[in-house]
Structure formats: C-alpha cells, structure tokens
C-alpha cells in the first residue's frame, strides 16, 4: 500500500519542528554554500562574457619613434600590410595622435599646453586575424625592437591580469562552497540521525506492525530534501542580488568602461539556478540516504 502524501508531509513537518534549531542551521549552511557555489558560476559567466568582448575587439599598437626614417616606417608598414595574420590596420599620424591626446586629457588643459604634435609618436593600430591572446602576443612581439619602432603595446597583459585575478577569486569561491556543501551534507545526516533517534520507539512499532521500509524512510528523506530546497531558495535569492545588484552595477555604462560586458544572460542565470537546485537535491539525497541506510535499516 502506498504512503499517503498527507501522512508523509505531516511526519516531515513534525520532524523539522522537533529539531527546529538544527534544521535552521542546516538550511542556512545549505543556503550559504549554494550561494557561493552559484556565485562561482555567475562570476565565471560574467568574466567570460567580458573577456570575450575584450578579445573580440583586441588589437595591438606599434608605436613608432617620431624620429624614425621614412625607410624604417615603410618597412614596418610593408610588414603589417603583407602579414597574413593581420586582418586590418590603421595609421595614426602625429596630428591625429595629438587630437586623441587632447581628447583624453581634456580635463587637464595644463598638460595639453606643454605638448605639441611633433613630440607625439605616430602609431599603427593593428587588428589580428586570430584574437587569441597567445597568437596576438606572438604577432606583436615580431615588431618589438625593429628599427624605427619605439614600443609595441597590446591589451593582453591587462586582460591576463584580470583573468588571473578572476580565476583566483573563482577558486576561493569554489573551494569555500565545496567545503560548505560537505558541511551541509553532514548537517543533513546529523539532523536525520537525530530525528531517527528521537523517534526510536515509533520506528520500532512501525517495523513490528509491518510498515514497509520505504514508508518509514520517506518522511526522513523528505525532511532532508525540504531543508535543501529551502536552502536552495535562499541561495537563489542571494544569487539574484549578485546578478541584479553587483554584476549589473559593475557593467553599468556609467561605471568602468572596462567592465562593460561583465554581465550574465537570463539563460545563464536560469541554468545556474537549476544547477543550484539540482546540487541541493543531490546533497540532501546523499545525506539522508546515508542516514536512513546506516541508522534506520539496522
């Protein structure tokens, strides 16, 4: 005979209520661990989206020496024009460089006053065919130290520094969340073992009168699942705050331009939410299964 849903819910509710403090501790631990776990994924999505945008528009700049001879300049131009690895290039002469400089430093006219077009280095803005950071770096290094070249600058170093920082933060999030998920699993197990011990006599009677193992087990397993799902809902709320306040705030156009593209799409948020819920259920099933198998069936 099947277990009545009303009976299962009533027993689950009573178990949760009897161990209220432990249940709350479990729910909070699950919530925080899943929040960190989901945060790790959202952060990675945001970093990937941002760096994809940076990489999509990546270029390197070959700054020429203002004193470079026309022959030296011509050799560099020829190398850029004939390279199969270069998709496009733009030459910025001294006057254009000076206009850019004036625009960038428009807030500091005293700086603009002491600079004249003749000290500004002309440059080639080069767009490679392959935006991969390693390929761009290799290509840029071919121009480093050539006659007439003052320096070669690419955005790679900045992107790599940001990616390295992001990776480090992600790893901390990930390790922290895994440790907390382990703690949450143990808490679920402890909670259910405590409930089993509290109801020792009931369980004994149930077995003697012929209740099936599943009839006895289900309320305990449901207890773990309910705790995990409530924890997942808390985590989801926390992730919503991260997504809508922190990540969206950073990618605000009025904020840092570098952070434009640092955002998470709705589908990425949904998949992270479902993953968090799935992990919550997996953790609760593992914790409660170990508890009922080890402490109920014997």
């Amino acid at each position, binding site marked *: 005979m099947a277990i009545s849903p009303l009976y299962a819910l009533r027993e689950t509710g009573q178990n949760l209520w009897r161990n209220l403090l432990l249940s709350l501790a479990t729910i909070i631990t699950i919530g925080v661990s899943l929040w960190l776990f989901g945060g790790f994924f959202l952060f990675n999505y945001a970093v990937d989206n941002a760096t994809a945008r940076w990489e999509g528009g990546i270029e390197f700049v070959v700054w020429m020496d203002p004193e470079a001879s026309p022959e030296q300049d011509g050799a560099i131009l020829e190398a850029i024009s004939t390279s199969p690895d270069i998709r496009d290039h733009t030459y910025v002469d001294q006057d254009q460089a000076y206009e850019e400089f004036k625009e960038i430093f428009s807030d500091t006219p005293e700086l603009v006053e002491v600079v004249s077009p003749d000290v500004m280095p002309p440059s080639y803005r080069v767009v490679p065919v392959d935006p991969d950071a390693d390929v761009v770096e290799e290509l840029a290094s071919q121009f480093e130290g050539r006659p007439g070249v003052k320096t070669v600058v690419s955005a790679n170093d900045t992107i790599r520094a940001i990616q390295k920082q992001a990776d480090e933060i992600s790893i901390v999030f990930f390790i922290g969340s895994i440790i907390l998920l382990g703690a949450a699993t143990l808490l679920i197990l402890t909670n259910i073992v405590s409930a089993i011990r509290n109801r020792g*006599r009931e369980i004994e009677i149930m077995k003697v009168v012929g209740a099936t*193992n599943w009839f006895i087990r289900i309320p305990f397993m449901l207890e773990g699942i309910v705790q995990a799902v409530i924890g997942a809902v808390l985590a989801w709320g926390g992730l919503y705050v991260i997504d809508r306040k922190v990540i969206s705030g950073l990618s605000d156009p009025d904020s840092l331009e570098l952070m434009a593209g640092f955002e998470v799409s709705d589908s990425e948020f949904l998949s992270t939410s479902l993953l968090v819920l799935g992990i919550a259920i997996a953790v609760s099933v593992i914790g409660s299964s170990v508890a009922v198998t080890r402490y109920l069936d014997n």
Partner: protein
Amino acid sequence: MIKLENVTKVYKGDSVALRDATVDIGKGEFVFLVGASGSGKSTFIRLLNREEVPEHGTIYVAGKDIGALGSWKVPYLRRNIGYIFQDFKLLDNKSVSENVAFALEVIGKPRHVVRKQVPAILELVGLSEKINSLPSELSGGEQQRVSIARAFVNRPLILLADEPTGNLDPQTSVGIMRLLDRINRTGTTVVMATHDRGIVDTMRRRVIELDRGVIVRDQARGVYE
C-alpha cells in the same frame, strides 16, 4: 500455523540462544514459553517475527518458509503477527485511540477502516471510555490493554507476547490473561513467553520449557514446574 525444524540461533561470541529446536504449533493454540532468564524464550519469539534469522533450520509461519522471504516481504509477514511487549511501548504523545490507529495508518489502511476498527477493538479490550486519554493517564493494566489492542487491531493470525504481565500486579495480570484468552478463542494463535507461575498453572495450556536454548519439555495442558 507455526513450525520450527531443527532451528539453531547463535549470537556473537558463540552464545547459543536456541539449539536444534523442533516445534509444531497449530492454528488457534495457546502456548506458554517458560524457562529461566536467558533460556531463549525471547529469541524464540523474535525468530517467529523475523527480527532474528536462525543460523540453521527452517521456520514456517502460515505455511511459508520465513527464512526464504525477501527483506521487502518481511513487513507483509508482520502484518499477520501481533506483538505485545512487556513494557507496552506506547507512544507517549499520542492518545489511546491514536496509538491504536497508528498501527493501521503505517500499513496504509484507509481512513474509513481506521475509524471503524479502532473503536471496535477498544471496546473489546474495555477501554471505550478512555479513547482520548494519554498513556501517562492510564494504569499499567490499561496501558497493556492498549498495547494488546494495537497488536490485535489488524486481526492477525498469530499473537506473540513477550512477558506481557511482567510489569503488572497479579490481579491486573489475571485481567490481561482473560483478554488474551478471549482473543485466542477467536481462532488467533497465541505464543506467550512468561515467568508467571500462577498464570501458567491456572490456565493449563500447552507449555514449552526452554533451558539454555534447548526445548526440555513440550506438554499439553501443562504447568510451570
């Protein structure tokens, strides 16, 4: 109804609780298991309920070899066997009727069956006036009556009782035995482990005596000795 063939049960440390026991108990019989503490009476009862499994031998209950039952079938075996404890094992937070109803609810009986059977069994055991009382509000005899009602509410074929009068005074014990006798007269097989000489001698039913796990006497209309 119950048949043991050369059954031996050994606990850890090579302590033999039952040795080569062969017994045949017919439908509707009332059997006392007697013997000193540690003689194997409780093991005998626990084997019949598949709480224990013998090392050797075969046990048949209602024609079925219960040692061959899959673990998932054991609950269904137990639905045909009522169990009465010495210490009653009532649930303190449930009323008399809830304690009895619990035995039906946990095997999935529909509500209308529970509503019909619980008052009927409480009337049989003489507790109709106390259906809403908590166990703490009952005397020992009344608590044992609730325990009997819970064991019998599903109308099992067999009733196992492990020292059911062990915690009761002689006068109350007589009342409990009258109740068990009445249940037995409905055709239910009763197997009762006891130390109570007075009860065994008064009832004059079949007596199986155990001594250090060995059946030393199996006597129809016997006495305690």
